[in-house]
């Protein structure tokens, strides 16, 4: 009998999803109730994950196809907390657009379930099932504001392109299965024969599929459209939570079965990283819509995360995880600001709408100032440390080219962040925005901003948590 305690959190969340679905069918006007229960479910799941797995070094289940280790628990907890925060700050937004429906929290829960399966996967099949579960939920979420043309367009675009990338991914899986005789990561790792170039093809196809999911250049085309078209709360979800899961899969896939083939995939990751950093920085300059801008900025940030992965060292993986964690906090803060730009039941999302914000909303603009400088990676804010760790790991492997290109692209990226700051602080003011925000929104903004601002006082804590990850 398998020790099902280890997957208790997944079991709990899937049972809750079914229960909530049934509840939604039988009880009328239950959207608020379901919303609150979902929040509770996410918190409870996080607690279970924390409890059940804190003293386990590494355990595998179901014929080695699911792995529970420190990394998986940590990433699950980040995912769950991220999803919780997204959900909690989006309620007002949903109500404004009259899409505060029972499906929304349930879809978020199911995509989170998919991500948790992905994070724990030690087998190509399990990984694919998790990926599809989260993607299917995300397609629907993207179209959630279905009365708006842009939202439907976003969902459709995401669906078509994502299906294509899933196809490539499956093709890669089948190639690897064909040449190693198994879909299990551990078995593949034993069967590896580095002279087999067809296996490399398999890796490339899977990397393409994964790169699509995290929107790394050149597989990023969907991101700006989908981010712009989706409801803002869903965009927030897109920019944060799926990236954590996809990154974990990225790490596990590259470092468990294929670490010996590092010569084959390292160049690919370096290319993806450099292309994402540069393209993200340059393409963001011309944007006028904040959500599109954030799409390009997130492409750039994924580039830095990949730079950590390209090192092939434990430090690199750890720095990537630190980076994505700090990035999630910064994004949460930024979107909290975005969700505050509301006037007469309408949300504003053009950069020009921020014009002169500092005169009417000094605190909000101060937070934005901190967040944007942090995104640009200026010390002493948290974003600088994220980049610092990445480049420390990169330079440890003497990858000077990657480091220099990466840091130069931060200068380019600084330009468009500065542009927003300029619009907020130096330009003429516009009408005031509403000041009555939900407590959760205020809390998440102030909490994340303070975290960004004061990170430099305790930089060791996060590293200590992450440094227990030893994937190699």
């Amino acid at each position: 009998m398998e020790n099902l305690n280890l997957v208790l959190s997944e079991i709990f969340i899937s049972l809750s999803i079914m229960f909530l679905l049934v509840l939604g069918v039988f009880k009328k006007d239950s959207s608020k109730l379901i919303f609150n229960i979902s929040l509770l479910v996410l918190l409870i799941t996080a607690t279970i994950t924390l409890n059940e797995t804190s003293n386990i070094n590494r355990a595998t289940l179901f014929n080695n196809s699911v792995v529970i280790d420190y990394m998986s628990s940590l990433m699950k907890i980040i995912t769950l907390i991220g999803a919780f925060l997204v959900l909690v700050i989006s309620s007002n937004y949903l109500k404004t657009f009259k899409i505060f429906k029972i499906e929304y929290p349930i879809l978020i829960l199911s995509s989170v379930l998919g991500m948790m399966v992905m994070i724990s996967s030690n087998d190509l099949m399990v990984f694919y099932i998790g990926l599809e579960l989260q993607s299917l939920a995300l397609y629907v979420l993207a179209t959630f504001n279905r009365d708006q043309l842009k939202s439907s367009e976003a969902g459709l675009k995401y669906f078509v392109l994502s299906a294509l990338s899933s196809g490539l991914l499956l093709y890669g899986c089948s190639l690897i299965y064909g040449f190693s005789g198994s879909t299990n990561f551990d078995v593949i790792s034993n069967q590896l024969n580095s002279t087999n170039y067809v296996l490399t093809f398999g890796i490339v196809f899977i990397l393409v599929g994964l790169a699509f999911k995290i929107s790394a250049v050149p597989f990023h085309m969907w991101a700006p459209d989908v981010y712009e078209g989706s409801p803002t709360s869903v965009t927030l979800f897109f920019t944060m939570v799926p990236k954590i899961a996809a990154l974990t899969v990225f790490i596990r896939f590259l470092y468990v079965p294929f670490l010996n083939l590092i010569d084959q995939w390292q160049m690919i990751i370096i290319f993806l990283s450099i292309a994402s950093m540069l393209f993200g920085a340059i393409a963001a300059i011309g944007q006028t819509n904040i959500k599109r801008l954030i799409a390009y900025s997130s492409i750039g940030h994924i580039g830095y995360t990949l730079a950590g992965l390209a090192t092939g060292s434990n430090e690199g993986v750890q720095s990537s995880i630190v980076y994505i964690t700090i990035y999630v906090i910064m994004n949460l803060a930024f979107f909290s600001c975005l969700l505050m730009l509301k006037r007469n039941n309408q949300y504003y999302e053009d950069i020009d709408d921020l014009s002169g914000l500092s005169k009417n909303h000094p605190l909000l603009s101060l937070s934005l100032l901190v967040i944007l400088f942090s995104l640009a990676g200026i010390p002493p804010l948290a974003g600088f440390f994220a980049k610092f760790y990445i480049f420390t790991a990169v330079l440890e492997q003497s990858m000077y080219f990657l480091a220099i290109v990466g840091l130069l692209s931060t200068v380019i990226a600084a330009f468009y962040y500065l542009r927003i700051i300029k619009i907020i602080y130096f330009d003429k003011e516009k009408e005031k925005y509403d000041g009555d925000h939900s407590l959760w929104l205020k809390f998440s903004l102030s909490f994340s901003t303070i975290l960004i601002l004061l990170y430099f006082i305790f930089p060791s804590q996060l590293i200590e948590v992450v440094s227990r990850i030893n994937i190699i």
Partner: protein
Amino acid sequence: MNFPILSSLILLPVIGALFLFFTKDKEGNNLTAKYVSLFTTIVNFLISIYLWISFEQSTSSFQFIEDREWINGFINYKVGVDGISILFIILTTFITPLCIISVNNTIKVRLRDFLIAILIMESFMIGVFCALDLVVFYLFFEAGLIPMFLIIGIWGGPKRVYSAFKFFLYTLLGSVLMLVAIISIYWISGTTDVMKLYELGIDAKYQNLLWLAFFSSFAVKTPMWPVHTWLPDAHVEAPTAGSVLLAAILLKMAGYGFIRFSLGLFPIASEIFTPLIYTLSVIAIVFTSLIALMQEDMKKLIAYSSVAHMGFVTLGIFTIQQQGIEGSIIQMISHGLVSAALFLCVGVVYDRMHSRLISSYGGIVTIIPKYSVLFMLFTLAALGLPGTSGFIGEFLILMGAFKDNFLVAVIASLGVILGAAYMLWLYKRVVFGKLINTDLTKMVDLNKSEYFILTCLAVPTLFFGFYPDPLINTIEVSVNDLINTYNSNLIKK
């Protein structure tokens, strides 16, 4: 002594800024904010004076060291001062309160926010000068960009956005390469602690590239020709207090960086690249002096003169002679006082006439005599008249340069003549001559606060001009030791 005096110097302005942050911002003359910030900075100044008094001059080792674990097992928060850095700290704490007094007349909107920016700036600048870890240094060095960007961008002149962006991006571009170098040093030597690095030395084969990476950052910040173009823009658009901070202290970070890091860590590379520095410095001295001659905007003229003066500084540093380096340090301190005063002088007439063009003035000597006298004093100090601190610096630098390279010294001496030319010509056109613009007759002479600030700056300028011993005594042992380490490292490798 266990009291963390340096950390309190760094923290105090931040605490003041936090306090201001929680006070209510009033429109117009916000006296609370002004008194709070003035109080904070004056206390900070007194602490730094205490630091100077209790500083042991006879040793070259770092003092008041604080060493705390910061990023575990990786980087320590380490600060300390030696004879070189202590003077810059005092310069910073001395100039900042004067800046705060000067905002009386210049800043009309959002005074509280402006003072917060200045206070935070002060804390970062002090941090730069006492950091004894490369990462800590970089952190403060870069962090200073944020408040300065806002100072130029929010309270600046009509072209402020362009200038603020140019300032920020130029400096950032230079600095990221330094970050690569710093992290590389960590992997090469296993530490970023400056004191340990001084002992260990850095492998000769890496030095050239690392030196260039540091150079790219310091050259932009100094600024050296040909990457000086951000400076005139930033100066012209920044509000007076911003220009003062920029000229008096920000530029000194790079000169300090050259002495502390380029010479201290990479002696072999410094030896190789000395001709490059000489060339760029000489070009800066002669070329920007010629540019300064042709300026019509007073602030721009002084900005270009700053570039020329910093050319002397870099020249002096890389002579690697006792006199040259001492001269450079004194020149930086003196330039800190004099350029601050000159920008304030421009600010004074600008506040009254709202024009910085030289041609709109002339013949004001009879209208505002007090101003004219003080302006005269600072003009003469800027051109290095004996009896002012400017002379000591330039003289020592040229003395060092003559020992090292005759040709360079001769050309640089030309710069002294040109410096006299543009400064005196500026003074002549603004203060003397016929009174053509009749609006000028309505000008009032210096008010109390302006008079106070300029006197405060004039006293040390003259005092150190006649009696530079306090400065030289402070730096002598440290500079001597620096040169000895430099030479021994050079032979060792």
